[in-house]
């Protein structure tokens, strides 16, 4: 028996890979990496929402076509992908050195670098910096890292109001909702839902507001303008941090990013440690890969780059918070660490047949879709997101579009195997899966037993309707909770063969030829 997708080798070998120490995962009880419900439960809920499925279908279809068009324009797209993969692999190979270099370069240019082992530490650092600046409100650029650590909740607990300024994040924040897509967090809302949220939550909006996207964008502009012009602290994430120069980079569309990184006196950037890239020239690769893969544009409208403090231009107090929060745990897995190569373009979400039907909320993490299914469990420890590696049909579309060639299907299978292995180590009773595999091994080892089992399986026909079994009894119920099983055929292949070729049967057939 060789590769069984999603199933453990059995009988099991002892774990072949044991890290020297327990890896440090993202802590529980803070941030948005863990689901309240396992994926199958949440997905069932999402699938019942017809409006959600319509919104998702329309949005993902649109963006897939845009991406395909701008990718096909470039004669060297595959070379760029290969370069992106190579740069990321090389970065991870020397991550400590690149981070030390980034730290030194930012510091040399008048910035202050902070390190955070986890979400709690990062939240404390940012809160203290905002308080030191004497601010009670901050403006924020869309940032997955700050959402991951639950920064807005931490700031609110300290009496600091955080205003999301990206249009989609604003829709999510005003709707007391959660983002459902890496790039288009309000992808699950259509225009009339958004108008209703604005009318309900914005005190400065006209009651005549229509659901025309341009009118809604104008309402957001008016609503946020005063905040931008008066804000004293801005908070951002970073798409890239260049080790060689200390340059931080934010890629965006609306200008809210430029506002947040330019107008306030204090700028605080929270960046995952895996976002460092070694050299300035590497930007020439990623500034082509990212916009074409994410929004399907040749270039996003605005990209801001800053290096420490520029006297007389922009924030004069510049901070960088380097965040671990489970990333080093992912790094410790020689296969799984490829998930850290992700540049958060979201192309894999848009092509995923599972994401397209369930949307992002079902994944329960700020990182949804195929990349989320391999990243979130590694950040939290697999047992805390155990259903995510199974939230895929392994069709491979995600791998084809990934701008840095992360082999997501391979990672999914790898994490499934790790999950089963870890569960076996910690559980004293064998799982239903393990018992089934042991039984299968016993039955398949002997032709007589197989014949008897096949004959017995025909009793399963009693459970089926129209060729399908939708509910098997325990312990097999776990299988039919998420899928139908076919009804066993009325006769086995062996019986069929005997009926058609009864003349030339021989005992040798029963010895098998495997």
């Amino acid at each position, binding site marked *: 028996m060789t590769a069984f997708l999603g199933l453990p080798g059995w009988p099991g070998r002892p774990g072949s890979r044991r890290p020297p120490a327990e890896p440090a995962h993202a802590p529980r009880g803070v941030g948005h990496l863990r689901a309240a419900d396992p994926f199958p439960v949440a997905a069932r809920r999402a699938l019942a929402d017809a409006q959600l499925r319509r919104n998702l279908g329309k949005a993902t279809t649109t963006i897939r076509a845009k991406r395909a068009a701008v990718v096909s324009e470039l004669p060297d797209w595959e070379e760029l992908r290969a370069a992106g993969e190579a740069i990321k692999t090389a970065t991870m*190979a020397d991550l*400590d050195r690149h981070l030390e270099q980034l730290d030194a370069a930012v510091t040399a240019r008048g910035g202050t670098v902070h390190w955070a082992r986890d979400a709690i530490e990062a939240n404390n650092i940012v809160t203290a910096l905002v308080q030191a600046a004497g601010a009670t409100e901050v403006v924020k650029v869309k940032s997955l890292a700050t959402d991951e650590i639950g920064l807005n909740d931490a700031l609110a607990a300290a009496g600091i109001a955080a205003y999301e300024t990206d249009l989609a994040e604003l829709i999510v924040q005003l709707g007391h909702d959660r983002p459902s897509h890496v790039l*288009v967090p309000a992808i699950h809302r259509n225009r009339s839902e958004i108008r209703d949220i604005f009318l309900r939550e914005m005190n400065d909006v006209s009651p005549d507001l229509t659901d025309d996207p341009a009118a809604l964008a104008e309402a957001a502009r008016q609503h946020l303008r005063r905040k931008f012009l008066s804000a004293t602290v801005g908070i951002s994430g970073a798409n890239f941090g260049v080790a060689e120069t200390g340059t931080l980079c934010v890629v965006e569309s609306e200008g809210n990013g430029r506002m947040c990184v330019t107008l306030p006196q204090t700028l605080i950037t929270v960046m995952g440690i895996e976002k460092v890239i070694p050299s300035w020239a590497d930007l020439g690769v990623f500034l*082509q890969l990212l*916009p074409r893969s994410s929004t399907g544009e040749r270039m996003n*409208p605005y990209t801001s780059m800053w*290096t420490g403090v520029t006297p007389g231009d922009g924030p004069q107090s510049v901070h960088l918070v380097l965040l671990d929060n489970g990333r*080093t745990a992912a790094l410790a897995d020689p296969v799984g660490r490829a998930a850290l190569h992700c540049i958060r373009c979201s192309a894999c979400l848009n092509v995923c047949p599972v994401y397209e039907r369930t949307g992002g909320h079902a994944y329960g993490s700020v990182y949804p879709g195929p990349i989320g299914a391999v990243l979130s469990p590694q950040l939290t420890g697999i047992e805390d997101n155990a259903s995510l590696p199974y939230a895929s049909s392994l069709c491979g579309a995600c791998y084809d579009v990934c701008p840095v060639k992360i082999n997501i299907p391979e990672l999914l299978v790898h994490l499934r195997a790790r999950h089963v292995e870890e569960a076996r180590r910690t559980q004293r009773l064998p799982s239903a899966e393990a018992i089934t595999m042991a039984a299968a091994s016993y039955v398949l080892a002997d032709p007589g037993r197989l014949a008897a089992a096949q004959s017995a399986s025909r009793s399963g026909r009693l459970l089926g309707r129209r060729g399908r079994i939708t509910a098997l009894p325990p312990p097999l119920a776990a299988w039919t909770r998420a899928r139908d099983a076919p009804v066993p055929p009325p006769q086995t292949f062996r019986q069929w063969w005997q009926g058609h070729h009864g003349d030339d049967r021989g005992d040798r057939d029963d010895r098998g030829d495997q």
Partner: protein
Amino acid sequence: MSARDDVLARIRAAARTGADGTGPASFAAAPSPGPRYRTRSELAGPELLELLASRLTDYRALVHLASAATLADEIGAALRRRQARRIVVPPALRLPLPGFVTATADTRPFLSPAELAAFDGVVTRAAVAVAETGTIVLDGSPDQGRRAISLVPDYHLCVVEAGQVVHLVPEAVARLAAGRPLTWISGPSATSDIELERVEGVHGPRTLEVVLVSG
């Protein structure tokens, strides 16, 4: 142990976890043969400017071609169409502006964001432009000014010289100095956050007009 030491120690421990649980061999990147993607282009002259103009137009920027002789007329015509009279300019713009315009240079003490919001528009030059992507890059030089002046006013008129135009993104990266505050601009601000329908004009200037100067 400080958080810095701790995180670095975790990284080093992780790096020691090779595929077989031992040495870092599996962790090392393959030696790179050098970039195979395009880093240089032979595209030049009018073809390059035409590509830039068409890509800028694709993303809803207004584009005009001018020569050194017609530059002043193009700038004047653009500002007149826009009815832009109160203009903010960088400290050393060195461009001819029409008589009906009152230009305020952003010099120390710098204009506040609220003051910038009161202007009809801003006129700047650029550092580099990328034809393939329809992108203009500002680097904060004295003819481009602080980042805030090209951000807060609702109208941005940008003058790009032919010699500043490159074909490819890597060529632009190679020309730019990392230490400067950079703003890459590709069309006016936009959002696709509502049903992925593109809307031009959110927080940045809602109108971007570009004059390309050749010869």
